[in-house]
């Protein structure tokens, strides 16, 4: 928005400036204007060029869309144009693949194609020509023999080549490509003409060996088909040709007849001096005969043409059949050729007859023509004399006398003239005769030559046919012989094969039996081994299982035993614990419960354990019956004992009077010793003092050592001893019991530990 305003302001300013013509920055403004002006023209140029370019490109694209060749050209010449075209028009249509199947065909060739060409071309030409050329049949006769084989090989090659990729894409020739060889298989008549074009192909293609059999089979089948088609074609052609030829012959005969008749009639008409009406009828009849003759001649001519065409066609068919070189067709071909030949011969003979008749007729007609001419001349003269009269013999009756006279005069004149001519003629007769003879000779010669040539041709044809027939026969014979030989050979071969096969069968059988036996044995041993293995493994497993079972049983038993032991140990331990517990039941000043029950329990729990029994019995009876005092009670009791023992410290056996008592009491009151003193490891003599002993004992008691205290107290002498006697006994009892119990518990623990099953 701001920018727009700024722009607007700028432009306004500029405009204003420029409008005012204030030369603030005139040059620049002017420059801008001028540049704008020049810019506008430059812009125009630019626009125009852009338009042109666009137009050119668009036009190119459009035309490329319409003409793919142009498009291809452009794509070839201009790089990246194909992308542009692709963008604009889409991908180009692929070029039509027509050339491929055509190109397949160029592959099949034989090296003898040249020979074949040479041999084929005259034949082709001969085929194409309407005239019969027996010579051309000569050289191709041996050649077709070879070319038949070649053709079959070629056919096979064709067949093989079609199925394979052409290794050499030959430069395709124009019409050759237009005629794919399969046409040769179908259109036999066309084959002859078209096979001439097959020659142009280049190299030979080798057939793969593996396909030979297939190819042969195919070839046979093709041959069979060809044969059938050929024979049918031949038959058809023969039939049609025969028909047509017969027709032609018939027509010719009819023509002959007509000609003869006409001639006769003409001669009759010429020579006979019949009365005018009969003459007219005669002439009419003659005319009819003439017309008849012409018609029949035409018909005959047409029929001959047709027959000739048919014959040519037949020949073409035969040639085509020959080209295909199917051996089996040869007799039929030969027969067809023979038929052809005979037809040709007949036709020729008939034609010659017709020609002779025609020549005769020509003579007669010439004669008649002459006569007619004379008559016409006469008529003309007559007409010139008498123009009113119609030149018609029949109108003679209407003639006037003058006319008659003039006519007669004319007639006389004519007679004179004719007589003169006759005389002249008689004179020139010889010359004329000679010339006529010469002419005749020439014509005869010509006719002779023609006849000779035709006869020669026919003969040649005949001989060729005979030769072919002979060849055919010999071939058949040879083939039969070969067949027999081959059969023999085949028989021998089969015999040999049979023998060999038998031998081989034997060998193979024995081998197979051997193999079978060996494999059988192998399998049997394998089986045995396997079963043995299985058995062994099973036995092993069984043994293992049994052992394991046994082990398990033992383990269980041992477990049971161990558990029993453990139970016992546990019980022992429990009872010992019970004993321990009973020991703890001592009240402060009362003894424990009598240990008897616990000990009894112990005794019961470890009936088999001698050690435990011994220990159990080792307990002092007082503990059993009465229980023992606890250490605490003994400790507490010790202090009274100590007090008393101190008071009677002086009293012993020697000093035991009352006064001593008093003194000991006094001593006790006045003597202060340590309450507790650690006893030394060894007691010396002076340690045996009562007070010291008592302090030692107190110390050891305070430190929980009842045993030591008891020992120390045991060292008291005299009255102190007597005073501490009970305490000592009790201490001894307690100590004893405790010892036994600790032993028992230790033993129970040991036993428990021993019987505990380690995890």
């Amino acid at each position, binding site marked *: 928005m701001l920018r727009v305003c700024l722009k607007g302001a700028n432009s306004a300013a500029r405009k204003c400036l420029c409008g005012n013509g204030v030369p603030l920055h005139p040059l620049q403004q002017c420059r801008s204007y001028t540049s704008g002006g020049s810019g506008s023209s430059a812009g125009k140029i630019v626009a125009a060029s852009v338009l042109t370019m666009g137009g050119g490109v668009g036009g190119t694209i459009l035309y490329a869309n319409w003409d793919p060749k142009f498009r291809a050209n452009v794509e070839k010449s201009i790089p990246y144009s194909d992308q542009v075209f692709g963008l604009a028009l889409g991908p180009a249509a692929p070029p039509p693949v027509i050339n491929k199947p055509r190109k397949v065909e160029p592959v099949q060739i034989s090296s003898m194609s040249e020979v074949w060409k040479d041999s084929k071309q005259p034949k082709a030409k001969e085929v194409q020509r309407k005239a019969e050329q027996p010579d051309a049949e000569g050289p191709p006769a041996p050649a077709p023999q070879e070319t038949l084989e070649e053709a079959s090989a070629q056919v096979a090659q064709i067949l093989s080549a079609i199925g394979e990729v052409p290794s050499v894409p030959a430069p395709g020739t124009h019409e050759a490509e237009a005629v794919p060889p399969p046409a040769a298989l179908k259109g036999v008549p066309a084959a002859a003409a078209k096979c001439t074009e097959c020659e142009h192909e280049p190299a030979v293609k080798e057939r793969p060996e593996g396909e030979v059999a297939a190819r042969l089979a195919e070839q046979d089948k093709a041959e069979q088909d060809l044969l059938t088609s050929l024979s049918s074609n031949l038959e058809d052609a023969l039939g049609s040709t025969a028909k047509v030829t017969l027709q032609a012959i018939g027509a010719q005969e009819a023509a002959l007849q007509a000609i003869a008749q006409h001639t006769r009639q003409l001669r009759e008409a010429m020579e006979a001096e019949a009365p005018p009406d009969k003459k007219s009828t005669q002439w009419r009849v003659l005319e009819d005969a003439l017309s008849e003759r012409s018609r029949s001649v035409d018909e005959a001519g047409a029929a001959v043409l047709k027959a000739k065409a048919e014959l040519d066609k037949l020949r073409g068919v035969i040639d085509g059949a020959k080209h295909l070189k199917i051996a089996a067709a040869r007799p039929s071909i030969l027969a067809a050729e023979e038929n052809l030949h005979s037809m040709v011969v007949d036709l020729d003979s008939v034609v010659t007859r017709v020609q002779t008749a025609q020549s005769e007729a020509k003579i007669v007609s010439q004669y008649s023509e002459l006569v007619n001419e004379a008559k016409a001349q006469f008529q003309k003269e007559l007409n010139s004399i008498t123009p009113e009269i119609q030149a018609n013999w029949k109108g003679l009756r209407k003639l006037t006398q003058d006319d008659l006279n003039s006519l007669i005069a004319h007639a006389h004149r004519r007679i004179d003239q004719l007589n003169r001519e006759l005389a002249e003629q008689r004179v020139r007769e010889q010359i004329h005769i000679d010339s006529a003879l010469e002419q005749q000779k020439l014509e005869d010669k010509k006719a002779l030559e023609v006849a000779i040539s035709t006869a020669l041709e026919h003969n040649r044809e005949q001989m060729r046919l005979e030769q072919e027939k002979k060849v055919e026969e010999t071939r058949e014979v040879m083939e039969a012989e070969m067949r027999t030989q081959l059969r023999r050979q085949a028989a021998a071969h089969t015999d040999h094969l049979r023998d060999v096969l038998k031998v081989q069968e034997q060998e193979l059988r024995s081998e197979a039996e051997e193999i079978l036996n060996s494999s059988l044995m192998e399998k049997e041993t394998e089986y045995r081994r396997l079963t043995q293995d299985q058995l062994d493994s099973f036995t092993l497993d069984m043994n293992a299982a049994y052992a394991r079972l046994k082990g398990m049983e033992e383990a269980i038993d041992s477990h049971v035993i161990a558990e029993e032991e453990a139970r016992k140990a546990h019980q022992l331990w429990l009872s010992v614990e019970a004993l321990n517990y009973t020991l703890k039941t001592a009240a402060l000043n009362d003894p424990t419960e009598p240990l008897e029950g616990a000990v009894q329990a112990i005794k019961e729990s470890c009936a088999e354990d001698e050690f435990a029994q011994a220990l159990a019995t080792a307990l002092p009876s007082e503990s059993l019956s009465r229980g023992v005092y606890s250490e605490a009670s003994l400790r507490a009791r010790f202090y009274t004992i100590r007090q008393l023992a101190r008071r009677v410290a002086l009293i012993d056996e020697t000093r*035991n009077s*009352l006064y001593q008592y008093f003194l000991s009491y006094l001593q006790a009151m006045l003597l202060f010793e340590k309450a507790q003193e650690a006893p030394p490891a060894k007691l010396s003599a002076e340690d045996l003092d009562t007070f010291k002993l008592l302090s030692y004992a107190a110390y050891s008691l305070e430190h929980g050592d009842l045993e030591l205290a008891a020992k120390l107290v045991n060292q008291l002498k005299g*009255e102190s001893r*007597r005073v501490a006697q*009970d305490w000592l006994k009790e201490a001894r009892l307690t100590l004893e019991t405790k010892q036994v119990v600790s032993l028992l518990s230790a033993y129970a623990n040991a036993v428990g530990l021993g019987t505990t099953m380690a995890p």
Partner: protein
Amino acid sequence: MSEKELGKKLDRCLADSAVKLGAGLGLGIVFSVVFFKRHTWPVAFGLGMGLGMAYTNCQNDLRAPYLIQRNIKMAS
């Protein structure tokens, strides 16, 4: 309890001495009254005799465990 023995002995001693002293006193008094015209000497004598007897009894009692006693076996 062996420790209580001494106490017991002393108790007996005291009891005995009390008895003896009493008896002695009593006899003394009696004798003094009866026979010796209330002189105090028989009381003192009686007391003394009682005390002495008590003392001796107590002493014997206290000595008793130390006395070696013969076990008179009947030799027959």
